[in-house]
Protein backbone atom coordinates (compact mmCIF):
# COMPACT_ATOMS: atom_id res chain seq x y z
CA UNK A 1 0.00 0.00 0.00
CA UNK A 2 1.38 3.38 -0.74
CA UNK A 3 2.14 5.98 1.86
CA UNK A 4 -0.13 8.59 0.32
CA UNK A 5 -3.09 6.27 0.76
CA UNK A 6 -2.00 5.49 4.28
CA UNK A 7 -1.84 9.18 5.08
CA UNK A 8 -5.29 9.72 3.65
CA UNK A 9 -6.65 6.95 5.86
CA UNK A 10 -4.78 8.31 8.85
CA UNK A 11 -6.28 11.78 8.46
CA UNK A 12 -9.72 10.39 9.21
CA UNK A 13 -8.61 9.73 12.81
CA UNK A 14 -7.36 12.13 15.45
CA UNK A 15 -3.58 12.53 15.32
CA UNK A 16 -1.56 10.57 17.82
CA UNK A 17 -3.84 7.59 18.22
CA UNK A 18 -3.12 4.16 16.88
CA UNK A 19 -5.69 1.52 16.07
CA UNK A 20 -5.01 -2.00 17.29
CA UNK A 21 -1.94 -3.47 15.64
CA UNK A 22 -1.02 -0.40 13.59
CA UNK A 23 1.96 1.90 13.98
CA UNK A 24 1.48 5.64 14.05
CA UNK A 25 4.52 7.82 13.62
CA UNK A 26 4.37 11.60 13.90
CA UNK A 27 7.37 13.19 12.31
CA UNK A 28 8.21 16.89 12.23
CA UNK A 29 10.46 18.39 9.58
CA UNK A 30 11.80 21.54 11.22
CA UNK A 31 11.98 24.92 9.55
CA UNK A 32 15.63 25.51 8.73
CA UNK A 33 16.90 29.00 8.11
CA UNK A 34 19.15 28.72 5.10
CA UNK A 35 19.70 30.54 1.83
CA UNK A 36 18.77 27.52 -0.26
CA UNK A 37 16.38 25.06 1.29
CA UNK A 38 15.60 21.72 -0.30
CA UNK A 39 13.11 19.33 1.19
CA UNK A 40 14.93 16.41 2.80
CA UNK A 41 14.95 12.84 1.62
CA UNK A 42 13.48 10.73 4.43
CA UNK A 43 13.51 6.99 4.99
CA UNK A 44 11.62 5.20 7.74
CA UNK A 45 12.22 1.55 8.37
CA UNK A 46 11.94 -1.21 10.91
CA UNK A 47 15.16 -2.92 11.92
CA UNK A 48 15.79 -5.94 14.16
CA UNK A 49 18.58 -5.53 16.74
CA UNK A 50 20.86 -7.85 14.74
CA UNK A 51 19.93 -5.97 11.54
CA UNK A 52 18.85 -9.21 9.90
CA UNK A 53 15.25 -8.12 9.46
CA UNK A 54 14.75 -4.78 7.74
CA UNK A 55 11.30 -3.62 6.54
CA UNK A 56 10.75 -0.35 4.73
CA UNK A 57 7.91 1.78 6.10
CA UNK A 58 8.28 4.97 4.04
CA UNK A 59 10.63 6.66 1.62
CA UNK A 60 10.23 10.31 0.64
CA UNK A 61 12.40 11.37 -2.25
CA UNK A 62 12.29 13.41 -5.41
CA UNK A 63 9.98 11.14 -7.38
CA UNK A 64 9.12 13.70 -10.06
CA UNK A 65 12.38 13.85 -11.98
CA UNK A 66 12.75 12.46 -15.50
CA UNK A 67 14.16 8.90 -15.63
CA UNK A 68 13.72 8.74 -11.85
CA UNK A 69 16.96 10.67 -11.52
CA UNK A 70 15.98 11.46 -7.94
CA UNK A 71 17.27 8.01 -7.04
CA UNK A 72 20.81 9.25 -7.59
CA UNK A 73 20.79 10.72 -4.08
CA UNK A 74 19.15 7.82 -2.26
CA UNK A 75 22.66 6.80 -1.17
CA UNK A 76 22.76 9.95 0.98
CA UNK A 77 20.30 8.17 3.26
CA UNK A 78 23.41 6.25 4.17
CA UNK A 79 22.17 3.75 6.71
CA UNK A 80 18.94 3.03 4.88
CA UNK A 81 20.80 2.62 1.61
CA UNK A 82 23.34 0.20 3.06
CA UNK A 83 20.80 -1.95 4.91
CA UNK A 84 17.83 -1.85 2.62
CA UNK A 85 17.80 0.34 -0.49
CA UNK A 86 20.72 -1.11 -2.34
CA UNK A 87 19.47 -4.69 -2.02
CA UNK A 88 16.23 -3.95 -3.86
CA UNK A 89 15.78 -3.75 -7.62
CA UNK A 90 13.21 -1.01 -7.09
CA UNK A 91 14.07 0.50 -3.71
CA UNK A 92 11.11 0.89 -1.33
CA UNK A 93 8.63 -0.06 -4.03
CA UNK A 94 5.11 0.58 -2.73
CA UNK A 95 6.12 2.86 0.14
CA UNK A 96 7.84 5.62 -1.87
CA UNK A 97 6.39 9.05 -2.35
CA UNK A 98 7.37 12.66 -2.94
CA UNK A 99 9.36 14.75 -0.47
CA UNK A 100 7.35 16.67 2.16
CA UNK A 101 7.40 20.31 3.24
CA UNK A 102 8.38 21.68 6.63
CA UNK A 103 5.83 20.75 9.27
CA UNK A 104 4.27 17.82 11.06
CA UNK A 105 3.53 14.66 9.14
CA UNK A 106 1.97 11.37 10.10
CA UNK A 107 2.87 7.97 8.80
CA UNK A 108 0.43 5.26 9.75
CA UNK A 109 1.32 1.68 9.03
CA UNK A 110 -1.85 -0.39 8.97
CA UNK A 111 -1.88 -3.66 10.89
CA UNK A 112 -2.23 -5.49 7.57
CA UNK A 113 0.55 -3.55 5.79
CA UNK A 114 3.08 -5.86 4.07
CA UNK A 115 5.90 -4.50 6.27
CA UNK A 116 4.27 -5.92 9.40
CA UNK A 117 3.38 -9.36 8.05
CA UNK A 118 5.34 -12.39 9.28
CA UNK A 119 7.53 -10.16 11.37
CA UNK A 120 9.56 -12.45 13.66
CA UNK A 121 9.30 -11.72 17.39
CA UNK A 122 12.15 -9.58 18.64
CA UNK A 123 13.53 -6.21 19.63
CA UNK A 124 13.05 -3.77 16.79
CA UNK A 125 13.70 -0.14 16.20
CA UNK A 126 11.77 2.25 14.03
CA UNK A 127 14.55 4.22 12.35
CA UNK A 128 14.02 7.63 10.77
CA UNK A 129 16.81 9.03 8.61
CA UNK A 130 16.75 12.40 6.86
CA UNK A 131 19.28 13.87 4.42
CA UNK A 132 18.98 17.27 2.79
CA UNK A 133 20.66 18.61 -0.33
CA UNK A 134 23.13 21.33 0.70
CA UNK A 135 22.25 20.40 4.27
CA UNK A 136 22.92 17.78 6.87
CA UNK A 137 21.81 14.31 7.79
CA UNK A 138 20.25 12.92 10.95
CA UNK A 139 19.10 9.54 12.17
CA UNK A 140 16.76 8.75 15.05
CA UNK A 141 15.88 5.35 16.51
CA UNK A 142 12.77 4.49 18.52
CA UNK A 143 12.47 1.06 20.21
CA UNK A 144 9.60 -1.24 19.28
CA UNK A 145 9.20 -4.68 20.85
CA UNK A 146 7.35 -7.11 18.59
CA UNK A 147 4.77 -8.54 18.85
CA UNK A 148 2.99 -5.74 20.69
CA UNK A 149 2.00 -6.82 24.17
CA UNK A 150 1.20 -3.41 25.59
CA UNK A 151 0.83 0.10 24.26
CA UNK A 152 4.02 1.75 22.99
CA UNK A 153 4.56 5.51 23.18
CA UNK A 154 8.06 6.67 22.35
CA UNK A 155 9.26 10.14 21.60
CA UNK A 156 12.56 11.75 20.62
CA UNK A 157 13.61 15.13 19.36
CA UNK A 158 16.02 15.60 16.50
CA UNK A 159 18.59 18.36 16.71
CA UNK A 160 19.31 19.21 13.10
CA UNK A 161 17.30 17.77 10.24
CA UNK A 162 14.48 16.22 12.26
CA UNK A 163 12.15 17.71 14.84
CA UNK A 164 9.91 15.80 17.23
CA UNK A 165 9.37 12.16 16.35
CA UNK A 166 6.81 10.11 18.21
CA UNK A 167 5.75 6.53 17.79
CA UNK A 168 2.49 5.10 19.05
CA UNK A 169 1.30 1.54 18.79
CA UNK A 170 -1.10 -0.63 20.71
CA UNK A 171 -1.79 -4.36 20.63
Amino acid sequence: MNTVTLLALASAFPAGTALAGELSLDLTLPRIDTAEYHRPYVAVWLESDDRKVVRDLALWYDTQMADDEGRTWLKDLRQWWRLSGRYQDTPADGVSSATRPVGKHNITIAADAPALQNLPAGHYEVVVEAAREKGGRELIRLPLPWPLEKAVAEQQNGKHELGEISLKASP
Partner: protein
Amino acid sequence: MKKVLAISLLTTALSLPTISAAHDFWLLPSSTVLSGNDSWVTFDGAVSNDKFHFNHRPLRLANLIITGPNGATLKPQNPHIGKLRSSFDLKLPEAGTYRIAAVNDGVMALWKENGEDKRWFGTAAELAGKVPSKADDLRILQRGSRVETFVTQGRPTPIEAPESGLGIRPLTHPNDLFTNETAIFIVTLDGRPLPNVEVELVPGGQRYRNQIKEIITTTNENGEFEVTWPNAGQYWLHFEHRDNKTSVPQAQSRNLSYTATLEVLPE
Protein backbone atom coordinates in the same frame (compact mmCIF):
# COMPACT_ATOMS: atom_id res chain seq x y z
CA MET B 1 58.21 4.69 3.57
CA LYS B 2 57.69 1.73 5.80
CA LYS B 3 59.90 1.14 8.77
CA VAL B 4 59.31 -2.60 8.45
CA LEU B 5 60.61 -2.76 4.92
CA ALA B 6 63.61 -0.66 5.81
CA ILE B 7 64.46 -3.03 8.64
CA SER B 8 63.92 -6.16 6.57
CA LEU B 9 66.18 -4.77 3.86
CA LEU B 10 68.94 -4.02 6.31
CA THR B 11 68.78 -7.52 7.69
CA THR B 12 68.97 -9.33 4.37
CA ALA B 13 71.96 -9.99 2.20
CA LEU B 14 70.13 -8.42 -0.74
CA SER B 15 70.08 -5.04 0.88
CA LEU B 16 68.55 -2.56 -1.55
CA PRO B 17 68.02 0.67 0.33
CA THR B 18 67.12 2.48 -2.90
CA ILE B 19 63.68 0.83 -2.80
CA SER B 20 62.82 2.37 0.52
CA ALA B 21 63.33 5.79 -1.04
CA ALA B 22 60.29 5.24 -3.27
CA HIS B 23 57.14 7.28 -2.79
CA ASP B 24 53.70 5.90 -2.09
CA PHE B 25 51.08 5.17 -4.74
CA TRP B 26 47.36 5.70 -4.56
CA LEU B 27 44.08 5.94 -6.44
CA LEU B 28 41.33 8.19 -5.13
CA PRO B 29 37.68 7.64 -6.18
CA SER B 30 35.21 10.57 -6.20
CA SER B 31 32.47 8.27 -4.79
CA THR B 32 32.43 4.69 -3.57
CA VAL B 33 28.73 4.05 -2.87
CA LEU B 34 26.26 5.03 -5.59
CA SER B 35 22.54 4.87 -6.26
CA GLY B 36 20.47 5.74 -9.32
CA ASN B 37 20.66 4.77 -12.96
CA ASP B 38 23.39 6.89 -14.49
CA SER B 39 26.38 6.53 -12.20
CA TRP B 40 29.82 7.93 -12.91
CA VAL B 41 32.92 7.96 -10.78
CA THR B 42 36.06 9.92 -11.49
CA PHE B 43 39.43 8.76 -10.18
CA ASP B 44 42.68 10.51 -9.44
CA GLY B 45 45.94 8.63 -9.29
CA ALA B 46 49.21 9.92 -7.93
CA VAL B 47 52.51 9.06 -6.38
CA SER B 48 53.28 11.04 -3.24
CA ASN B 49 54.10 10.58 0.39
CA ASP B 50 51.18 12.65 1.61
CA LYS B 51 48.27 10.38 0.91
CA PHE B 52 45.59 11.92 -1.29
CA HIS B 53 47.50 15.19 -1.74
CA PHE B 54 48.91 15.67 -5.23
CA ASN B 55 52.42 16.94 -4.75
CA HIS B 56 54.88 14.67 -6.53
CA ARG B 57 54.07 12.66 -9.68
CA PRO B 58 51.05 11.31 -11.55
CA LEU B 59 50.24 7.59 -11.39
CA ARG B 60 50.89 5.83 -14.69
CA LEU B 61 47.68 4.51 -16.19
CA ALA B 62 49.24 2.01 -18.62
CA ASN B 63 48.53 -1.00 -16.43
CA LEU B 64 45.07 -0.07 -15.27
CA ILE B 65 42.73 -3.05 -14.98
CA ILE B 66 39.08 -2.25 -14.31
CA THR B 67 36.85 -5.22 -13.62
CA GLY B 68 33.06 -4.98 -13.49
CA PRO B 69 30.67 -7.02 -11.31
CA ASN B 70 30.29 -9.73 -13.97
CA GLY B 71 34.05 -10.09 -14.47
CA ALA B 72 34.16 -8.09 -17.70
CA THR B 73 37.03 -5.65 -18.23
CA LEU B 74 36.02 -2.00 -18.67
CA LYS B 75 37.92 0.84 -20.28
CA PRO B 76 38.54 4.10 -18.45
CA GLN B 77 37.16 7.20 -20.15
CA ASN B 78 38.80 10.62 -20.54
CA PRO B 79 42.20 9.50 -19.25
CA HIS B 80 44.50 12.39 -18.53
CA ILE B 81 48.06 12.50 -17.27
CA GLY B 82 48.94 15.77 -15.62
CA LYS B 83 52.06 16.99 -13.97
CA LEU B 84 51.01 16.02 -10.45
CA ARG B 85 48.19 13.55 -10.97
CA SER B 86 46.44 11.43 -13.53
CA SER B 87 42.69 11.05 -13.78
CA PHE B 88 40.03 9.06 -15.60
CA ASP B 89 36.26 8.57 -15.53
CA LEU B 90 34.29 5.37 -15.27
CA LYS B 91 30.63 4.77 -16.01
CA LEU B 92 29.06 2.03 -13.90
CA PRO B 93 26.67 0.37 -16.35
CA GLU B 94 25.25 -2.24 -13.98
CA ALA B 95 24.69 -2.91 -10.30
CA GLY B 96 27.54 -4.41 -8.32
CA THR B 97 31.10 -3.81 -7.25
CA TYR B 98 33.86 -2.56 -9.57
CA ARG B 99 37.54 -3.17 -8.92
CA ILE B 100 39.87 -0.46 -10.24
CA ALA B 101 43.50 -1.57 -10.07
CA ALA B 102 46.88 -0.46 -11.38
CA VAL B 103 48.83 -3.72 -11.52
CA ASN B 104 52.53 -3.69 -12.23
CA ASP B 105 54.88 -6.64 -12.64
CA GLY B 106 58.45 -5.77 -13.49
CA VAL B 107 62.08 -6.49 -12.93
CA MET B 108 64.86 -4.44 -11.41
CA ALA B 109 68.52 -5.21 -11.95
CA LEU B 110 71.55 -3.73 -10.20
CA TRP B 111 75.16 -4.41 -11.10
CA LYS B 112 78.58 -2.84 -11.37
CA GLU B 113 80.30 -2.06 -14.64
CA ASN B 114 83.91 -0.83 -14.45
CA GLY B 115 83.29 0.02 -10.83
CA GLU B 116 80.22 2.11 -11.70
CA ASP B 117 76.76 1.32 -10.30
CA LYS B 118 74.21 0.37 -12.97
CA ARG B 119 70.48 0.14 -12.50
CA TRP B 120 67.74 -1.01 -14.85
CA PHE B 121 63.95 -1.27 -14.56
CA GLY B 122 61.79 -3.03 -17.10
CA THR B 123 59.74 -6.08 -17.92
CA ALA B 124 60.86 -9.70 -17.63
CA ALA B 125 60.70 -10.02 -21.43
CA GLU B 126 63.21 -7.21 -21.98
CA LEU B 127 65.61 -8.39 -19.30
CA ALA B 128 67.86 -10.62 -21.45
CA GLY B 129 68.65 -7.85 -23.92
CA LYS B 130 69.23 -5.07 -21.41
CA VAL B 131 71.05 -6.66 -18.52
CA PRO B 132 74.33 -8.61 -18.80
CA SER B 133 73.95 -12.23 -17.74
CA LYS B 134 77.16 -11.94 -15.74
CA ALA B 135 78.40 -8.83 -14.02
CA ASP B 136 79.91 -7.79 -10.73
CA ASP B 137 77.39 -7.64 -7.91
CA LEU B 138 74.55 -8.53 -10.28
CA ARG B 139 71.27 -8.65 -8.41
CA ILE B 140 67.95 -9.17 -10.13
CA LEU B 141 64.67 -8.57 -8.37
CA GLN B 142 61.13 -9.20 -9.51
CA ARG B 143 58.80 -6.44 -8.39
CA GLY B 144 55.03 -6.65 -8.26
CA SER B 145 52.59 -4.04 -7.06
CA ARG B 146 48.85 -3.64 -6.95
CA VAL B 147 47.26 -0.26 -6.28
CA GLU B 148 43.49 -0.49 -6.18
CA THR B 149 40.14 0.73 -4.98
CA PHE B 150 36.53 -0.43 -5.09
CA VAL B 151 33.24 1.26 -5.92
CA THR B 152 29.72 -0.11 -5.79
CA GLN B 153 26.62 0.85 -7.73
CA GLY B 154 23.52 -0.56 -5.99
CA ARG B 155 23.91 -4.04 -4.56
CA PRO B 156 27.50 -4.96 -3.57
CA THR B 157 29.02 -8.09 -5.14
CA PRO B 158 31.83 -10.21 -3.66
CA ILE B 159 35.51 -9.39 -4.17
CA GLU B 160 37.82 -12.30 -4.99
CA ALA B 161 41.47 -12.36 -3.96
CA PRO B 162 43.83 -11.82 -6.93
CA GLU B 163 45.37 -15.07 -8.20
CA SER B 164 48.93 -13.82 -8.07
CA GLY B 165 50.86 -11.42 -5.91
CA LEU B 166 49.49 -9.64 -2.87
CA GLY B 167 45.82 -8.92 -2.42
CA ILE B 168 42.92 -8.89 -0.04
CA ARG B 169 39.82 -11.03 0.33
CA PRO B 170 37.45 -8.80 2.24
CA LEU B 171 35.20 -10.42 4.85
CA THR B 172 33.65 -6.99 5.35
CA HIS B 173 32.75 -5.50 1.98
CA PRO B 174 35.04 -2.54 1.17
CA ASN B 175 32.00 -0.45 0.28
CA ASP B 176 30.29 -1.11 3.60
CA LEU B 177 32.68 0.60 6.02
CA PHE B 178 31.37 2.86 8.78
CA THR B 179 32.90 4.75 11.69
CA ASN B 180 33.20 2.81 14.96
CA GLU B 181 32.48 -0.46 13.20
CA THR B 182 35.03 -3.25 12.86
CA ALA B 183 36.00 -4.51 9.42
CA ILE B 184 37.87 -7.77 8.73
CA PHE B 185 40.04 -8.48 5.69
CA ILE B 186 42.21 -11.44 4.72
CA VAL B 187 45.61 -10.60 3.25
CA THR B 188 46.44 -12.99 0.42
CA LEU B 189 49.62 -14.03 -1.34
CA ASP B 190 49.04 -15.76 -4.68
CA GLY B 191 45.40 -16.15 -3.63
CA ARG B 192 46.13 -17.82 -0.27
CA PRO B 193 45.94 -16.26 3.22
CA LEU B 194 49.19 -14.71 4.42
CA PRO B 195 49.71 -14.85 8.19
CA ASN B 196 51.93 -12.54 10.19
CA VAL B 197 52.24 -9.68 7.73
CA GLU B 198 52.32 -6.14 9.04
CA VAL B 199 49.50 -3.95 7.72
CA GLU B 200 49.49 -0.16 7.72
CA LEU B 201 46.43 2.09 7.46
CA VAL B 202 46.82 5.84 7.08
CA PRO B 203 43.81 8.17 7.23
CA GLY B 204 43.57 10.89 4.56
CA GLY B 205 43.83 14.59 5.33
CA GLN B 206 47.39 14.25 6.58
CA ARG B 207 48.15 17.88 5.68
CA TYR B 208 45.68 19.11 8.27
CA ARG B 209 47.17 17.39 11.29
CA ASN B 210 50.58 17.11 12.88
CA GLN B 211 50.76 13.35 13.39
CA ILE B 212 50.25 10.69 10.74
CA LYS B 213 47.90 8.71 13.02
CA GLU B 214 48.61 5.49 11.16
CA ILE B 215 47.08 2.25 12.37
CA ILE B 216 49.53 -0.66 12.40
CA THR B 217 48.33 -4.21 12.82
CA THR B 218 49.43 -7.73 11.90
CA THR B 219 47.54 -10.56 10.24
CA ASN B 220 46.73 -13.58 12.43
CA GLU B 221 47.36 -17.24 11.57
CA ASN B 222 44.43 -17.15 9.14
CA GLY B 223 45.81 -14.13 7.34
CA GLU B 224 43.09 -11.91 8.84
CA PHE B 225 43.42 -8.45 10.23
CA GLU B 226 40.70 -6.28 11.68
CA VAL B 227 40.34 -2.57 12.11
CA THR B 228 37.81 -0.43 13.96
CA TRP B 229 37.53 2.83 12.05
CA PRO B 230 38.13 5.80 14.36
CA ASN B 231 36.87 8.38 11.85
CA ALA B 232 35.12 8.64 8.52
CA GLY B 233 37.21 9.46 5.47
CA GLN B 234 39.58 7.87 2.99
CA TYR B 235 42.14 5.38 4.30
CA TRP B 236 45.34 4.24 2.59
CA LEU B 237 45.87 0.52 3.20
CA HIS B 238 49.32 -0.87 2.59
CA PHE B 239 51.45 -3.99 3.11
CA GLU B 240 54.48 -5.60 1.57
CA HIS B 241 56.02 -9.02 1.25
CA ARG B 242 59.31 -10.39 0.05
CA ASP B 243 60.23 -13.97 -0.84
CA ASN B 244 62.12 -15.97 -3.45
CA LYS B 245 59.14 -17.44 -5.34
CA THR B 246 59.95 -15.60 -8.52
CA SER B 247 58.37 -16.30 -11.88
CA VAL B 248 61.40 -14.72 -13.57
CA PRO B 249 64.18 -17.39 -13.67
CA GLN B 250 67.03 -14.85 -13.44
CA ALA B 251 65.56 -13.12 -10.36
CA GLN B 252 66.73 -14.11 -6.90
CA SER B 253 63.78 -12.65 -5.05
CA ARG B 254 60.51 -10.85 -5.50
CA ASN B 255 59.29 -7.75 -3.73
CA LEU B 256 55.54 -7.34 -3.62
CA SER B 257 53.43 -4.47 -2.42
CA TYR B 258 49.72 -3.89 -2.06
CA THR B 259 47.88 -0.61 -1.67
CA ALA B 260 44.16 0.08 -1.51
CA THR B 261 42.07 3.16 -0.87
CA LEU B 262 39.08 2.49 1.36
CA GLU B 263 36.33 4.98 2.15
CA VAL B 264 34.74 4.94 5.60
CA LEU B 265 31.40 6.73 5.98
CA PRO B 266 30.04 8.35 9.14
CA GLU B 267 27.46 6.38 11.13
